[in-house]
């Protein structure tokens, strides 16, 4: 039985838009276990991306506690949170956000550039990540020479290269054709089953969510159901 990787206890996010108080997340409780593939669904403005950003340490909750491997990260300062992200998480974006002047290899290498590591070790890790993402044959290609699906594979390799326990993905297949989307989802699923990574994915697509072990629905910042398995 895998242990709990993330535990959210009554987390809320509040911000002001002019004089209006916006509450994208309201008193949310959630547990995510190691190796789980979790999908977050809900209408626009339901708080999915806010929750994803908080889980990824990109945003901080206004209230509540967020434990990552039993460490409370909700109170971490900006610098500590950046260090936390460098070690524990990776983000996959809908539009890949690869650096256009870097080859696929160099894009995957990017997160390691600030780590203390020999170039030999770095090379080993990059090659391994490219292999895992099944894009090693395009290592020397620039993003503009790759298809959308291939770019997303490079982005996944970039996410894997630091070997983080958590990977968050914001609509990773939103910009891909059906065939490429299926391949990417299969790859994400395999990260959980084969490498015991935890993947939290925001999606609007029920077919994409069907690949997840568990799907949560958010509406107005609240989980409608605690656990809801779309597929099963």
């Amino acid at each position, binding site marked *: 039985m895998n242990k709990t990787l993330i535990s959210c206890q009554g987390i809320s996010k509040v911000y002001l838009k002019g004089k209006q108080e916006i509450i994208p997340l309201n008193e949310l409780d959630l547990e995510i276990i190691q190796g789980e593939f979790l999908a977050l669904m809900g209408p626009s403005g339901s708080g999915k991306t806010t929750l994803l950003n908080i889980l990824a340490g990109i945003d901080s909750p206004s209230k509540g506690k967020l434990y990552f491997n039993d460490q409370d990260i909700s109170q971490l300062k900006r610098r500590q949170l*950046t260090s936390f992200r460098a070690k524990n998480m990776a983000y996959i974006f809908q539009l890949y*956000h690869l650096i*256009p*002047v870097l080859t696929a290899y160099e894009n995957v290498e990017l*997160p390691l*550039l600030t780590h203390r590591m020999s170039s030999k070790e770095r090379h080993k890790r990059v090659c391994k990540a490219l292999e895992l993402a099944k894009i090693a044959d395009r290592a020397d290609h620039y993003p503009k020479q790759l298809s959308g699906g291939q770019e997303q594979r490079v982005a996944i390799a970039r996410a894997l290269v630091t070997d983080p326990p958590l990977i968050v993905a914001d609509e990773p297949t939103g910009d891909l054709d059906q065939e490429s989307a299926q391949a990417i989802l299969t790859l994400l699923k395999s990260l959980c089953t084969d490498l015991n990574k935890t993947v939290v994915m925001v999606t609007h697509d029920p077919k994409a969510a069907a690949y997840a072990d568990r799907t949560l629905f958010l509406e107005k910042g609240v989980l409608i159901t605690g656990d809801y398995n779309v597929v099963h």
Partner: protein
Amino acid sequence: MWFINLSLLSFKQIRRHWLRSLLTIAGAACGMFLFMTVETFQDGLKNATEMQAGDDTLVVYRDKRFCPFTSRLPEDYSNKIAQINGVKSVVPVQVIVNNCGTSLDTITFRGFPEGEFHNYFAGKEIDSTLFDSWKLASDSAILGKEFAQRRGLKAGDRFDAAGITVRVSGIMESDDPQDQNTAFVHLDFLQKSSKRGLGEVTQFNVKVNDHTLLDQVAKEIDNTFRYDREPTHTRPEKAFIANTAKDMIELISFTRWLGLAAVLAVSFLITNTVIIAVRGRVIENAVMQAMGFQMEHLTWMTLAEGLFMGIIGGFTGIASAYLFLSTGNFAISAEGLSIVFNIQLETVLKASILAMIISFVAGIYPAFHSIQGNLVNRLRSH
């Protein structure tokens, strides 16, 4: 280690918009070229007009005259000057120029008596063997190195200027800017050739026993000839140059502002380019921050971009200016006095350090700009 890794990444970012980067580098090169040229002008001016400790030469000129054409002093004044207390030597000098105004290619003839060679060049490191061949013919001329290079003259050549024809007997190297742009000839030859007549000279170069006596001796010389037909005005050599070529010196001093403007232009140009680049990479920077890049990493990457462009452009400008000024043998003359623009190693060093500083400073605001704002908002900004 990250320092090197991210510097390489910055270099790749420069190549990304190669035309924009190239134009910025070219702009920085032009700016530093101008700065180097102006600094060399200033150095030349300083060299020609600032008194050094131990300067012991006075120039006796006709009072209220500036152009060599108008200063006509009896040659026999030298006997009276020699008798003044504190005077070590007196050399009567005839100066003829082809152009009394300000020019980049003035030809200056200086004639002095054959026997006064050691007194004229006292305190300077001059190859005395040059004068062995000079003495052999009355129309011999020893040319300053800059002058010879500018005109492409060598020993044995003949040339004609200001109605005087001479034969080059040798080329002389000297640290004194006034020597570098001059043709040294026999006094009597010059007096005859210029049709000014024997017994008349332009000035006297007077060496004193001790540099502390300069003012005292100058006053005494002027007092001696105050009521003569040709009263004199005596000043230390550098002060004489500073006073005589005042207009030219003011003009050159003004160029200092051009140098400053060039430096500011380089700085603004680099800042502008880097800030445009950074604004175009808001998401990229946010993505890198999301993957764990700290503020110092992003700051360094932006600073490095400015540094690369500034240093490449700056050093290109410095190297071009070095080649241009060292091969061009430039000198500007007025009233027969020269200011030589010889590039100094010190100036190269100063410009190199300045190029690095302005490149660094130019990147500070864009670097600050690159880490501003909420990460979540920046990630959403596409």
